[in-house]
């Protein structure tokens, strides 16, 4: 363990992420990991400070956890996963003596509430509705397409279906036909329905302290669920000023004093910015790692700074580099899914392996010969990492990967 600074805050990481623990263990703040009891032996063996906790549905025991952490001297809790966001809110409400934080966390956890709140705050959102059963979905699909003046037999414009409390692409389905609706399992209801926006989709990672943005990254999606890279192309970065204003609106509307947010936006062809959703936790797809590759700072350590009430402005200024200017290059990754029905081994395509931008991969060997049919967006089998100085070349390279077989 690095020498910990006793004058700085003591943080609790809610949720099990080896990457986060590794990064925070290397940082100068005292920390404790709050995770399910199965992690206990591992933590003992590796001297990782640990509090066992079952994060089931939020219940009255959140108070118990808050007091346990308070007794240990913990200053603030940091959510690592979507499922721990409301726990962090409940715990921080006690630790920071600010009951409002629990309500704020509930907004982040309910996609429908979140969207309404944004709309009330004057943020532009697409057409959306809540669905409690399949009938609601069919109705929304029909109505959206009627609005678009489609005739019977014209192919429908798709709608998006997102389970209320799932993160990222888990539980995210694209619906075009009534058959797609039949394939939705019961447990994914209730859900949020959204019209499809044609446009440029991207995500933002923002570290916030005292209601002010300390670092704002724009992650450009090449294809949702497949590939992303940072910093974005100059064409997207050209909108940085407007995007920053949008984030400031979010900060105001959701009353965010500190922490980290990860919203998604659409830039439509008529040059309007639409808000998709926002999460109060680190993004999936190892985006923090891409940021570290491009900028050289560790995103989890940045999280600790952003959450810790004892962080000083000098620390923040020294920690975060200057956006775009300080990037050493563009870092991207591609989530690999097997494309064939039956695969027997992993073989990085030759053109990828020989490409100067290709760095390395974290792909697993095929565990099963039979490839499960993808429903929703599913889970990729690992990531391939790329790095280079030309963002357009990187974007095209990531796009090309979709047509290549990594598993044969």
């Amino acid at each position, binding site marked *: 363990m690095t020498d910990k600074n006793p004058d700085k805050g003591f943080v609790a990481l809610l949720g099990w992420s*080896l*990457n986060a623990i590794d990064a925070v263990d290397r940082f100068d703040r005292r920390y404790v990991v709050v995770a399910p009891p199965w992690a206990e032996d591992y933590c003992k063996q590796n001297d990782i400070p640990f509090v066992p906790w079952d994060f089931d549905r939020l219940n009255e025991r959140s108070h118990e956890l808050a007091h346990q952490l308070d007794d240990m001297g913990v200053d603030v809790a940091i959510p690592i996963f979507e499922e721990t966001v409301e726990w962090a809110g409940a715990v921080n409400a006690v630790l920071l003596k600010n009951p409002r934080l629990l309500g704020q966390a509930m907004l982040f956890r309910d996609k429908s509430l979140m969207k309404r709140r944004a709309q009330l705050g004057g943020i532009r959102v697409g057409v959306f509705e809540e669905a409690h059963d399949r009938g609601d979905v069919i109705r929304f699909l029909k109505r959206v397409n009627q609005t678009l003046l489609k005739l019977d037999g014209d192919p429908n414009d798709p709608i998006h279906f997102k389970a209320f409390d799932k993160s990222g692409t888990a539980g995210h389905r694209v619906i075009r036909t009534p058959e797609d609706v039949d394939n939705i399992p019961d447990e994914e209801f209730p859900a949020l329905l959204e019209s499809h926006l044609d446009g440029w989709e991207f995500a933002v990672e923002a570290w916030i302290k005292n209601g002010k943005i300390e670092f704002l990254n724009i992650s450009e999606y090449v294809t949702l669920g497949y590939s992303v890279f940072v910093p974005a192309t100059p064409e997207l970065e050209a909108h940085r000023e407007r995007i920053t204003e949008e984030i400031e609106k979010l900060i105001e509307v959701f009353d965010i004093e500190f922490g980290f947010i990860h919203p998604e936006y659409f830039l439509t062809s008529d040059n309007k910015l639409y808000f998709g959703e926002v999460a109060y936790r680190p993004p999936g797809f190892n985006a923090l790692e891409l940021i570290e590759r491009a900028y050289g700072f560790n995103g989890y350590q940045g999280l600790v700074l952003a959450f810790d009430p004892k962080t000083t402005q000098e620390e923040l200024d020294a920690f975060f580099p200057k956006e775009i200017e300080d990037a050493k290059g563009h870092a991207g990754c591609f989530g690999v899914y097997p494309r064939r029905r039956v695969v027997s081994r992993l073989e990085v395509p030759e053109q990828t392996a020989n490409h100067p931008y290709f760095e390395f991969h974290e792909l697993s060997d095929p565990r099963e010969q039979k490839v499960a049919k993808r429903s929703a967006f599913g889970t990729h089998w690992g990531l391939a990492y790329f790095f280079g*100085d030309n963002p357009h070349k990187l974007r095209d390279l990531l796009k090309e990967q979709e047509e290549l077989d990594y598993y044969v």
Partner: protein
Amino acid sequence: MNVKDMSAPDDQSDGQEAEAVLARLSVTLDVAIERLERARPFAKGRYQGPVLDVVGRIIAQPGGLGVVRQRATRVDAAGLFSGSDWDRPEALLPQLVGGTLTSEDPAFRALEVCSLARFLAVADGDARHDNLHQDGARHFLTQVLALNLKDLFGVPDEAARALGARYDLKKRVLNHIADHVGLDDVLSVLVSEIWRLLEQRSVQVGMVKDMIAQIAIALNEKGTAPGSTRLGAERLVSALFGPTTASRDDPGLDIYLERLAVADESGLSREAMGFARAMHDTGLVSDYHAAFLTWALDYADRPLIPEALGLGGTGLDCWRHYRGLIEKLVRNAVTPATPQAAYGLAMLLDRGVLHHAPMVPALERQISLRIGGAARDRIALGFGEAVPPETHLLAGVLRVLGQPLGVGQGANPTCQSARAIALWALNDPDYLLHLITQVAEFDTLQMQFEGAPINSADLPVGLAGAGPIDADPVSVLLVVHLDRIYAEMGRLCAGRPGDPHTWINPQFHGWWVSRDCAVAVDVATGKLSSYDDFLRRFFAAYHPAYNGGRPLGHPQPAGIAVTDAHENFIGWHAIAILRVAEDQSGRMRVYFYNPNNDSGQDWGNGVIVSTSGHGERYGEGSLEFEAFLSRVYLFHDEPLRNPPGDEIPDNAIRQVSDQALSSWAATRQPEG
């Protein structure tokens, strides 16, 4: 920005472009290594894969091996090997390297290359490693080359061609190592290494036979300068592939048997004696020899078996008494899959074991024994199905009884079980056969501990897990049971003050283990306790000048603190003291049995175990009395003995004590 913009190279890429690719990949490798370096020990796992991925691509490039070699120490320190067997280079087996280099999984290939690069860096003196010294690294690499000579020189065979790029990689890696270590070394080191191993007369000779086969190919392909190396090498090759006049040109078994059919009396005699000479010279049995013995069984004119086994006086006497049994043993145990049984049989006869009354019926029982159940599967798994498991077991029995001190533990933590098998084979052969029968027929072993019955089938698995399959057939059969019983005896001793071996060793091995036990360290604290008294007592028990000149009757189990060449403590190890006697130059030496597979070891500060040249018999290791004692931490002694007198000189005790305190006991001195 440090990434050069560059299109992917095509097949005709010139040298410059290849260099640029290598330079770029080197930068990427450094990125991957930095990530691994940064990670905490518990998070290393995630960052190892990417490093191996880049290494895999670098080593496919010309000059890539050099890039990896430059970073070998850094990669090791960064934690590339943590969590895998490769983290302990001192425990790696050179015979596994070839297989891993052509593994299907590119990550394993890259890992092995990194590991070899680390050995190279240490061997070249560019790097140091806590558990690996320069000579050790060099020795390991020499063995790797020796074991893979075929791929270094040979024309690729079908199997090699099927491997394609993987075979090319292996060949390039071997050449890269040879460039650094030098090849002149390899053959001579290999030959002397083989002779050194052969002189210990191990029961298991598979690896030695492989190495000789490789030498044969190397000699054939490249030839070498004439000289003593070549002479030694050819002696080995001919012993295996053409030891006699009629087999010199390695004609194949069919043609050889045709030649036998038309040979005259003196020709057959010459064959028999040729085989015997080669066998006793090396301890190895040629396939032609095995064929000759089987053929000779049905040669009616006169018995050729005693000649072909090269029997001495005792052996010939056994032949005269028990010819029928011996012929049955040859018929049932000596086959093309089990030629070594012939050597075991010859040695067994010359030990006169058959004159021990229970042995003849016990061997008759062994011949008719049918192996059942799990025991049968285990032997088939370990030795293949070319001949029935019964044949493997009978051949194993002959080898173990003929070469008791050749029993080795394989790569298993079961030195106690291996030692027990060796000592029974030496001391109590019919008891060993009794145990074998129990396990073969009922897959269980019954023993007693201070009157309480123990049944191995009822016990949980011990150290050896499901049991070794990389040992001799007798060990494969018995160790899984012995190991459990040994562990159970340990459990039954729980709570007793002192070292449990005090009670276990006599109960486990037999009445002949002395009932008292001296231990150098206090079991609770791990610190030395009354060490000088311990040493005095050993002198009084074992040194002929101080024990009234009484020779050691039965071998006695003892425990040693094994140290490496730098005198660092490695672990406790079970051995057996066989005899204490003066060598040719009049120095008092302890001759002992070490169940690890190679007794010749350097324990540091001049304590180098000798395996030949100081009066050792086959399979014995030896050290001068004081040097040996400096590594002993536990020995058995008779409870009824007059207390050691004052005649043991203080300076002898001081000398031993100093040697111990400078090595394994350095951190075990009692406080105050």
